[in-house]
């Protein structure tokens, strides 16, 4: 009869009285439906104190359960006062619990950010990938890299030991690092390159060796080969940004506008003016449209040329179906998609140099150049 101590003074006496009475006259049990009938009243009491507190309904039910449990001991006359005392008691218990939680909340505060569950796993994977990559280097390469980057030996003393020059050692170290980056990515992604070309292309990209990239047709390979396309992203990102080259990925209509704007900007920087800028932008528009229409995906690269003659070179390449009959495609009026057939021949007329290479099933590359007129 814990209820008795906590009930308010008004109800207290009544309940006390009732329980005494109950002890005297056992029997006449309270009906379950009579308890259920108390629910609306209990809810009114709870809502009056708590409003729309989320626990309000719980408290009503909790009270009903307690009253039901105790109904054998309650005389029917005392049922209502007993229920009122109980609901007050239940509310008081909740307030006390909330107060305790509030007071102690600061103790539960943990200022540290917990590690994500997989952080450890990822770290381990990266460590393993690096170990595999280092393992794939030649023994000499590895020794030189460790001596320089880990032990801090300078290139001059390394050169003396190897009977070489400091410059040659530095160049070799830089090649080794380029290889290490490629091998690390391959190991991390657990990719075995699908073709023989992949490794050399990735290496050229990693070393930012543009001459080698051109020899290998690296750009075309990156479009064709899904693995290399993905792996080259971090390699390309770390290469120093070049202000004389702009690359626009082409896959949808808005990219055509982006490409021709970029071309106009680069051409203006190269020193082209007036109508020539419009010619370049229009030509880029035509070749970029060909990519969207026929190949779905590709890129347009706009490049400044210094010498022997200054100019702007546009390379549009895709890994699409290719053009079966190049001669026909370059003839005026030939069109396969409700165009005017002016795309390629039109672009050729707008530019100074125009060259197209296409292999059915592998893709098409259009290179075109606008030379900057000599100023007199």
């Amino acid at each position: 009869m814990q209820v008795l101590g906590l009930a308010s003074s008004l109800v207290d006496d009544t309940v006390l009285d009732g329980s005494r009475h109950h002890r005297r006259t056992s029997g006449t049990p309270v009906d379950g439906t009579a308890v259920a009938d108390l629910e609306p009243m209990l809810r009114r009491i709870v809502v009056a104190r708590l409003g729309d507190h989320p626990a309000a309904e719980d408290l009503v039910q909790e009270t009903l359960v307690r009253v039901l449990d105790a109904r054998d001991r309650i005389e029917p006359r005392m049922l209502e006062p007993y229920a009122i005392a109980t609901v007050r008691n239940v509310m008081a218990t909740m307030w006390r619990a909330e107060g305790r939680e509030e007071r102690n909340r600061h103790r539960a505060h943990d200022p540290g950010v917990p590690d994500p569950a997989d952080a450890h796993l990822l770290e381990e994977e990266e460590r393993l990938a690096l170990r595999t990559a280092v393992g794939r280097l030649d023994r000499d390469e590895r020794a030189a890299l460790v001596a320089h980057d880990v032990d801090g030996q300078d290139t001059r003393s390394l050169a003396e030991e190897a009977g070489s020059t400091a410059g040659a050692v530095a160049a070799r170290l830089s090649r080794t690092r380029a290889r290490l980056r490629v091998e690390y990515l391959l190991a991390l992604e657990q990719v075995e390159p699908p073709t023989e070309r992949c490794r050399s292309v990735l290496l050229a990209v990693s070393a930012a060796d543009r001459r080698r990239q051109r020899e290998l047709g690296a750009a075309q390979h990156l479009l064709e080969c899904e693995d290399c396309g993905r792996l080259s992203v971090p390699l390309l990102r770390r290469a120093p940004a070049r202000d004389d080259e702009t690359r626009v990925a082409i896959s949808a209509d808005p990219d055509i506008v982006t490409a021709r704007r970029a071309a106009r900007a680069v051409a203006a920087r190269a020193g082209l003016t007036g109508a020539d800028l419009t010619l370049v932008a229009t030509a880029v528009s035509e070749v970029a449209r060909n990519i969207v229409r026929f190949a779905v995906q590709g890129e347009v690269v706009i490049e400044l040329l210094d010498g022997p003659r200054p100019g702007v070179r546009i390379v549009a390449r895709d890994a699409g179906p290719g053009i079966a009959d190049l001669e026909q495609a370059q003839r005026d009026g030939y069109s396969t998609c409700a165009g005017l057939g002016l795309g390629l021949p039109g672009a050729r007329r707008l530019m100074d140099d125009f060259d197209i290479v296409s292999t059915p099933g592998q893709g098409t590359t259009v290179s075109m150049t606008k030379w900057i007129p000599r100023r007199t």
Partner: protein
Amino acid sequence: MNDGPALVSILRQGDTLVASVHTALDDSEMVRFQEDLVRQIGEHRARGVIIDVAALDVLDSFGSRTLRTIAEMARLRGALTVIVGIQPAVAYAMVRLGTGPGEVPTALDLEEGLAHLARARDPGGGGSVR
């Protein structure tokens, strides 16, 4: 033309529609422009259409073809189209490219375009149509 600043505005003046292209349009925007304009010709019972392309820095083969298509569709709907505002550099590129507005009449600017439409409708009142 639903989000961001309007790429194209189509205004009505009397029974003439004046369509101004405000910025470079990509191919799908160009096609939408075509659909909007042809629809409005019907809605406003327009007799003349002026397309102002002064803001365009490029009119490539697709752009030129779309303008020709608009003009032809407008003609079939009973409206005469004039293209105004082709920039000198754009005109040069169109000649080199081998595209052009074809049979569609052109005029230097909006004023000339309106005068052209007026003459075309009342041949007695002024000079020749083209």
